[in-house]
């Protein structure tokens, strides 16, 4: 059973066209939900950690939100340099490993 499901798998946006990426999860006792950005052939780059429902975090054009079942990564007025794969991961309350989704591949067209 998948613990983390990300949608859509791929997303193409025009520059300036805002949108949201979804991460739904099924773990018992969420310890943390993490968003990463990954460029091709490179390691994931940390973006945000969210711990409890209702929490929000922002960084430049990105805003992450968390509910009891899912998280959203909102991208406002994206630029071509925002093109990357965005990964979501969850950590259960009693465990140490991260469970990753398969990611959303974002392409921003100039």
């Amino acid at each position: 059973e998948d613990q983390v499901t990300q949608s859509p798998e791929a997303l193409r946006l025009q520059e300036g066209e805002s949108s949201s990426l979804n991460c739904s999860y099924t773990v018992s006792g969420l310890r943390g939900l993490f968003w990463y950005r990954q460029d091709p052939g490179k390691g994931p780059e940390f973006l945000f950690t969210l711990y409890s429902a209702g929490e929000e975090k922002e960084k430049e054009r990105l805003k992450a939100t968390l509910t009891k079942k899912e998280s959203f990564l909102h991208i406002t007025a994206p630029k071509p340099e925002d093109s990357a794969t965005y990964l979501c991961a969850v950590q259960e309350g009693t465990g140490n490993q991260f469970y990753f989704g398969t990611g959303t591949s974002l392409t921003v067209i100039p």
Partner: protein
Amino acid sequence: DAGVTQSPTHLIKTRGQQVTLRCSPKSGHDTVSWYQQALGQGPQFIFQYYEEEERQRGNFPDRFSGHQFPNYSSELNVNALLLGDSALYLCASSGWDTQYFGPGTRLTVL
């Protein structure tokens, strides 16, 4: 701050051979986790080391083993390589919760 470093960057091996990958954690971090990432997939947890002991292990065979040294650096060893072991191997270090990733080692098995 140097961040997480990994070596080598790329590696080509043949089936049946053995390989050792290395990781130095971010300054101040004492926990190291290893992940395997196949093309188009999210990272899959292999194991985590803390205080020189394997603290948790994912669903990987015993061909995958590791070690953590007193300076917190770590090695991942893979024996009897299979074609399916070709992937990007990621090391992540952490203190309390958030994991920070290195650039990865691209392993190709021929």
